[in-house]
């Protein structure tokens, strides 16, 4: 195979440690006494961070409102079950679709924005939705959460049991399948077009790429994935409250992605593992002041691992065959002097 074909083939091929990564999750299921509830929530945070990675890592769009789509997915799954549609898998897909449609609409609205303006509008929209859901108690149950949420067993066989075994497997399979689709997507020409638009929208224009339409599309896709992550949370905890839409969640997912490393798809999962563990660890150490350590972790990550844990790890191992070495903190692309 000629050199350039090998170059592109390597970027698509499954590398050894990718298989190991997913295998570890399967092994964790069989370890007795393992905290399946914690691991499922880490997976859900990871998938949510991957949806953010699509937007920030691949298309270079920061957003302070990703929790809005997560919450829409979570509440859609809740309402579906409340009105009798308790089958989880179809519920998951419908929730993703609803969040995706809202994402497309949001994409059209924020198309012309970038930088701080984009952060502020996404923040504003997220806050508006949070405020509405929290205040309309007759419709959403407000702070007390949506009443009457319950789900049928998965595939009619596996009930969502107390220990969380079904919940864990259901979450793991869902995350894996969605991840597979995203992995194929970012390795297709579309993925390359996202990276191109992130690096230099003006050059993409001159290649004939409809960057505005693509931007709306990527917002919709990332919203759909975030919505499915939200639906997974509702289905595995059989409960949903306004907290799923909070600004804190939008900020946490950014922190997770930066810690893990943007532009790698795996950065989301690695960041979630690190963030949730360290938060639980610090909270157990001294519950009152653990915010300090989370803050310090963030400052150190941004200072030393500027591209996140994963790239640093990858460099550490001097690993040749890792996926496309995309530098999420690239220097500003050369703007054309007017």
């Amino acid at each position, binding site marked *: 195979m000629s050199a350039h074909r090998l170059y592109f083939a390597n970027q698509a091929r499954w590398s*050894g*440690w990718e298989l*190991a*990564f997913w295998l*570890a*999750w399967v*092994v*964790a299921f069989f*370890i*007795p*006494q*393992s*905290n*399946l*509830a*914690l*691991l499922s*929530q880490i997976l859900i945070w990871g998938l949510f961070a991957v949806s953010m990675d699509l937007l920030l890592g691949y298309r270079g769009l920061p957003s302070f409102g990703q929790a809005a789509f997560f919450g829409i997915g979570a509440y859609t799954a809740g309402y579906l079950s409340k009105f009798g549609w308790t089958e989880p898998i179809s519920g998951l897909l419908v929730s993703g679709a609803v969040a995706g449609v809202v994402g497309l609409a949001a994409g059209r609205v924020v198309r012309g924005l970038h930088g701080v303006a984009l952060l502020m509008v996404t923040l504003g929209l997220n806050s508006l939705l949070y*405020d509405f859901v*929290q*205040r309309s*108690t007759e419709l959403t*149950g*407000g*702070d*007390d*959460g949506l009443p009457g949420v319950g789900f049928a067993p998965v595939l009619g066989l596996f009930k969502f049991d*107390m*220990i*969380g075994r079904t919940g864990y497997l259901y979450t793991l399979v869902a995350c894996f399948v969605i991840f597979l689709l995203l992995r194929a997507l970012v390795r297709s020409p579309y993925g390359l077009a996202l990276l191109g638009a992130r690096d230099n929208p003006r050059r993409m224009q001159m290649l004939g790429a409809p960057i505005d339409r693509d931007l709306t599309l990527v917002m919709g896709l990332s919203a759909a994935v975030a919505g499915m992550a939200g639906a997974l*949370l509702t289905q595995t*905890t*059989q*409960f*949903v*409250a306004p*907290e*799923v839409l909070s600004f804190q969640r939008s900020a946490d997912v950014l922190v997770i992605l930066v810690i893990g490393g943007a532009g790698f798809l795996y950065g989301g999962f690695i960041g979630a*593992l690190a963030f949730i*563990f360290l938060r639980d660890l610090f*909270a*157990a150490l001294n*519950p*009152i002041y*653990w*915010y300090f350590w989370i803050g310090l972790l963030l400052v150190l990550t941004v200072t030393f691992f500027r591209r996140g844990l994963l790239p640093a*790890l990858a460099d550490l*191992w001097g*690993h040749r065959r890792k996926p496309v070495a995309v530098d999420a903190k690239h220097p500003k692309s050369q703007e054309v002097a007017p």
Partner: protein
Amino acid sequence: MTGLIRRQALLALAASTLLSAPAMAQETVKVGLLLTYSGPSGLAGQHADDTIKVFQQRYGTSAGDKKIEFVKRDTTGPNPEVAKRLVQELIVREKVQLMIGPDFTPNVLASAPLITEGKVPTIIAGAATTGIIGEKSPYLMRTFFAIPLVVAPMAQYAYKTGVRKLFVLVADYAPGHDAENLIGKSFQAQGGTIAGNLRISLRSPEFSSHMQRIKDAAPDAVFAFLPTGELTVQFLKAYSDSGLKASNIKLLGTGDITDELLLDAAGDTALGVITAGYYSTAHDSAMNKQLVADLAPFKHAPNVPIWDALRLVYDGVAAQKGSPFNGDKFMTFAKGRKFESPRGPIAISATNGDIVQNTYIRRVERRDGKLVNVEIETIADPALR
């Protein structure tokens, strides 16, 4: 590369095997403790810890022939997802046999199915919304208070003391809406009229427009229902700065708005405010005076719901002397039990496990340099006679 795989598997392994401590010869009853220690409402958790320290200094760490071991977890505030995971961790892996908390209604609602399935008697010491105890799980009890307990009596007291036009101001969230409906219904049942209703956002630091609406309605009194926290302090400040305090419009409310936690932060703006509450540090009983004195070194008021929950746990465990601890036996022991609390006489309802207690009408006064809620009237619960 193999190094990385080993590291991955190790990480997953470490994460998942939180092994529990081996059982001791003398039976140990493990009690799960789910409070908020961090985040905006982290103060409550810290005060509960001090209260537990004082309780254990007085009554030791065992009851009857069994040792009591607390397993603490931080729910980090109203986070149902975190709370449910911690409840599962406590029941499934720590194998706790009793639980105190979680606080905040969404946390309780998310955990109720687990509590029922695990058959773990759980005492709620920090969630006030109605419709939890008795309905969501047969294993729930409450030593905190329910909103109706303090709202309905305030309506009667207001009417009795000559208030005919009442302005209702609540925080715009689920408990607030419950309180708004309840005060409206019970005050109108007395024959009074509601001069106006206002729901204020939980995150609005600016109160002057709300004060103006109150002035427009020119009521005889204002009933305020706000969560204990910065919102209440800002409201009390705005109420006095806007001149409403000086005018003859009385300020009434539930115990939350003059909670000891924020009395000194509110300062003189809280003077004279009349509230209906379940506990005041100024409650005139030997037991209360002793407790308040014991907590003085910690420089904050005792967390009485936690104190009563501990009392219930210790008595319940002691009652099962000679036989291994059984959850259902504890429930039958607890339901219908009457005992003296620092707040006054209380009982756990035999029918649904909710708390039965007196309501106290209190007015904020300055007693030897310190602001306290002086109890001026007791509305006893018939069941307690």
